[in-house]
């Protein structure tokens, strides 16, 4: 057993395959995730990178509890998902990829942010409102935004509202699936700064999947390289991105630093 005091998340022997009929299962046993084992210490941030169909989204959804793994155990602070559902729901919050569809467009921002509080806590109304405004403050949003609808917000503001919704229960870990790309360089730098500030001030860890290695380098301590559902490499970000010996990682880096990409020395 992995000790529980220091580890934040430990995944051991995780396998996943799409739920399908017994017939397909007998003849085609294609696992999307195969025997994934890693553990993350308290206060560390992780970036999951990999090629297409390498199972990045499945891994992060399994950690978030959105899909049930076929085999294997995920321990959150040493406890399984079943044994302490409440703790997991409060400490591991997910941010979704598409900021437009992630927010319910029929609700105002204040109502969107209230839902997790209503489900997971029994706070009085004034406490809830206080918490909502302090969280909006945390993600650099003005108070006036609380009474607006998502359709009146800009993309960056929508993204911040989804961050606020994830942060409202004071979680330990934020999981984000491909959610920082597709912004212009200024906004991208803004969001990265915000994540760094949350990591430093609130001691929040982030687990992200991304295809922008510069974001991975910027905000994470550890990197997990996946290929066809298996862990290729797991270790320190700087070490892997600067001097990896693995063939698959090298190919990934070569594809990333392709001929069209901006190079600093040119």
């Amino acid at each position, binding site marked *: 057993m992995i000790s529980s005091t220091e580890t934040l998340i430990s995944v051991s022997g995780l396998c996943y395959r799409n739920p399908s009929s017994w017939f397909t299962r007998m003849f085609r046993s294609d696992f999307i995730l195969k025997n994934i084992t890693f553990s993350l210490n308290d206060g560390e941030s992780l970036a999951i*990178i*990999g*090629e*297409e*169909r390498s199972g990045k989204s499945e891994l992060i959804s399994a950690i978030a509890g959105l899909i049930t793994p076929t085999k294997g155990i995920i321990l959150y602070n040493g406890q399984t998902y079943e044994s302490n559902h409440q703790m997991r729901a409060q400490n591991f919050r997910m941010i979704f*990829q598409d900021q437009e569809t992630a927010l319910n467009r029929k609700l105002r921002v204040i109502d969107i942010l209230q839902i997790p509080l209503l489900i997971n806590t029994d706070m009085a109304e004034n406490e809830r409102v206080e918490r909502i405004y302090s969280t909006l403050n945390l993600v650099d949003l003005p108070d006036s935004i609380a009474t607006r609808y998502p359709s009146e917000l*800009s*993309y*960056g503001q929508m993204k911040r509202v989804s961050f606020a919704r994830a942060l409202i229960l004071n979680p330990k870990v934020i999981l984000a699936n*491909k959610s920082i*790309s*597709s*912004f*212009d*360089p*200024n*906004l*991208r*730098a*803004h969001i*990265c*700064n915000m994540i*760094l*500030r949350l990591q430093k001030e609130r001691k929040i860890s982030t687990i992200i999947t991304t*295809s*922008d*290695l*510069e*974001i991975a*380098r*910027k*905000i994470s*301590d550890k990197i997990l390289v996946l290929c066809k559902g298996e862990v290729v490499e797991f270790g320190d*970000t*700087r070490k892997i*991105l*600067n001097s990896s010996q693995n063939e698959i990682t090298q*190919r*990934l880096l070569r*594809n*990333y630093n*392709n*001929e*069209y*990409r*901006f190079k*600093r020395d040119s």
Partner: protein
Amino acid sequence: MALLDIRNLTVKIKTSEGILTIVDKVSLTINPGKILALAGASGSGKSLVMQAIMMLRRDNVIYSADRFKLDDKDLLKLSSHQRRKIIGENISFIMQEPKRSLDPSLKIKTQIYEVMPKIKWYRFFTRIKNLIKNTKRQTAIALLHRSGIKDHSRILNSYPSQLSDVECQKVMIAMAVASEPKILLLDEPIVNLEIASRFQVLKLLDKYSKNDETSIIIISNDIASIYNFADEFAFMYAGQIVERGTREQIFKNPRHPYTASLIRSMMEMNNPDNAKKFIPVLTGKHPDYKHMPIGCRFGARCRYAKRRCNNMPEITMGKNSQYRCHFPLPDGALYSDD
């Protein structure tokens, strides 16, 4: 001679609170075989410029322009039917999110056959010959091969939901080049794609622009990824093109403070020494289209703003670039620390 020449393109949108001018006097020219990249904050009107070039009709949108020439034909003098014909033959548009722009209820096969050039009804001998030889399918396969798809039989017989994002994007490119267009418009083609797929898509587009002399206008906010792909860059802010120029000029000596801030953010993000460090960023927010400032639209966020910035700056022609600023930055201002 320019292939596409647009002068003072303006796009207005009718809303419940009156008519808003979103795109304000944008001028674009593009030469055959060149690649122009449009970048800027979300909501700065990049996608609307694309839709205006395609002249996509929507009830609440009004387009106007002083000049709109495609291949030396003045499109403004033609009737809307003729104009649509010329645009349809010469320009192809690939919209954002390939998965959503393909029809989910039809097989890829059907959708590709739909865009392939039709044979006229009176050439029925050719039609019968084609039916016997199954030319339609052969052409579709050839198109897919050119766009880098190898297992054509699986792709042709599947629905968009069964394919991955890159495959959908490649199918979209194959469909767009089926009519051999002179101009290809792309709206965020590489966002949300994986690392290797981005490279593949860019390589494919580069091949088309080099071999067939197709001009490409590409919208992308990831300016680091398309740095060596585009020949020219244009940056938009609040519905105006604030700076436009060749790659060397723009990235070495940007004149407009907004361009400089974008490039600086991009460079800081790409600096490996900056891991886990805060980056200086531009403060303030994009102006609202309902209350647009009278003078320079970037004025409220610009740290070099002076009294003269209360007047709208005109476009100044520089050596290799055009910019819209009263106080252009001097050479080397990008790398000085202040």
